[in-house]
């Protein structure tokens, strides 16, 4: 599996320290994701879903083991190299969108491109394309406070894909949305996976949302207890 994996966790352990108490999350976890997968991770609160996403996204480091992205270790990169790696390879989608309120949709989407050497014109083009893909181009000049939750999440997805990363990590992307908006967002994610080959890992509590993925993994107490393929 390792030669095909986009990202791979090898014997990963992760624990948190709360005062003198050590809280283990993962112990000796092995997990690999192939390019082009769309995985939904489900599980009860405290099962380690968000921690898994943080490890995959390089925003947290394992206590032990290795994390490889395209066969190169990322868990031992310096903070600045890891930040650069995230900017190039990962798009993040949050439950509460996390858009900057003083920037309009286009400016929010442009944020990751500030870390690149692209010209202003090229940046504008990329922003327009990303907004177009998620179907919110007509709201480019609107501020987050002027948009619905579903529209804000589309902008957040556009921000996640604007620098064309290989992997998208979504933490409860529909957790704050009504069913209709949720379905629209999930359709967008499905389209990004199917039409643009984006590898997606989505954490969700919602079985309906999980059905949009190709594979559903159930996590409990730091272990994958069940896996199912979605027809």
């Amino acid at each position: 599996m390792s030669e095909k994996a986009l990202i791979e966790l090898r014997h990963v352990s992760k624990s948190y320290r709360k005062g003198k108490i050590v809280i283990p999350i993962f112990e000796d976890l092995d997990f690999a994701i192939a390019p082009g997968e769309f995985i939904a991770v489900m599980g009860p609160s405290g099962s380690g879903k968000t921690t898994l996403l943080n490890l995959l996204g390089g925003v947290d480091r394992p206590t032990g083991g290795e994390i490889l992205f395209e066969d190169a270790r990322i868990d031992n990169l310096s903070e600045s190299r890891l930040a650069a790696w995230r900017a190039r390879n990962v798009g993040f989608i949050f439950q509460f969108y996390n858009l900057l309120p003083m920037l309009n949709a286009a400016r929010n989407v442009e944020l990751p491109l500030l870390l690149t050497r692209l010209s202003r014109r090229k940046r504008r083009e990329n922003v327009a394309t990303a907004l177009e893909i998620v179907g919110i181009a007509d709201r480019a000049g609107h501020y987050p406070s002027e948009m619905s939750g579903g529209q804000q999440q589309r902008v957040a997805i556009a921000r996640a894909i604007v620098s064309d990363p290989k992997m998208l990590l979504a933490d409860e992307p529909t957790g704050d949305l009504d069913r209709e908006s949720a379905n629209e967002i999930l359709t967008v994610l499905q389209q990004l996976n199917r039409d643009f080959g984006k590898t997606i890992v989505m954490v969700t509590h919602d079985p309906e949302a999980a059905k949009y993925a190709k594979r559903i993994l159930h996590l409990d107490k730091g272990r994958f207890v069940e896996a199912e393929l979605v027809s």
Partner: protein
Amino acid sequence: MTSAGLMWKNVWRRKLRAILTIVSILIAFLIFGVLRSFDQALHAGVDLAAADRLVVVSKVNFTVSLPYAYVNKIAAVDGVKRVTFATWFGAYWQEPRNQFAAFAVDPESWLETYPEMIVDPDDRARFLANRTGALVGANLAKRFGWKKGDRIPLPSTIWSRKDGSKVWELTVEGIFTGADAQTDTSYLVFHHDYLNEARSFARDTVGWIVVTTSSHERNDEVARAIDTMFYNSARQTKTDTEKAFSAAFIKQFGNIGLIITSVVGAAFFTILVITGTTMALAIRERTGEIAVLKTIGFTGRRVFALVLGESLFLALLGGIPGLLFASGLVTAMRAALAGLLPTMVFSERTLLEGLVLILALAFVTGIVPAANALRLNITAGLARG
């Protein structure tokens, strides 16, 4: 959008708070600019004093005259290059409230001792040739509308003539300017001989003696030699550098420097607390956003720079207009204070000091929030946000 654009947007995300902070900073720099100009004007004499000039006055008080004979005795002291002297005239123009500085001087040696007085060669020649001639500073000439060739009857609050009159007729032979904007040109000089021969008392005395030494390194030695020479005489002397003499003169008005430092210091401390608190609050409110920026690839250093830049924007937005307003106010006050502080200008030095203070303010108020942003753990930040 650029990183600077992002900082700019962050500054204005809470408009009222931003405006109040900027206005506070503006007021602080306005106070700084005006008080610093005032302080510099007061100390202009001290700052411009030549390093190799000594002033000899009576040990009793600098208003007590010295015998004229001292001039030649001092000229003979080893290490003395040149000697000149002056007497305070106590002049006013038309009404006693229009007082100004006028010195009776030894013309030739005075002009050699004070090269910062820029005089046209022809005017200089006419002044030297005419015993009732006077050289008038440009500021003073402007203040009273005097021109070259004007005959000006000057009353003295001190010196009366042998005929009982206190009015001394002078002819303006030239208008002198200063070597730079801070050189005082608000006084006039005229021939000491004219005063000495016609005054009704204190003949053959001088107010003070100015000594140019062969090298400023010999100042102490020469000053000691002069004071020792007259130690057993009826009129003991006190010799100081021109700088120390000017500083002592200013001290008559109280410790202006301390007052200015205290006022500016208090204003700055207040602004520092206000701006620092504002910045800390602003960053604390945005913990989640900073975590998001870091998540999408902004490095800790970049976030640090963004926060510090925001602080710099605030300081510049308040500080630069504050200095500009101060410059305008000082220019406006200059005419009104021409008699009291003729050299009051908003100098390049004040501007430079102001700019350095702006940077310091930005750094001091921004460094802690920026460091917190730099250190922010992403997962903890996302959880809090």
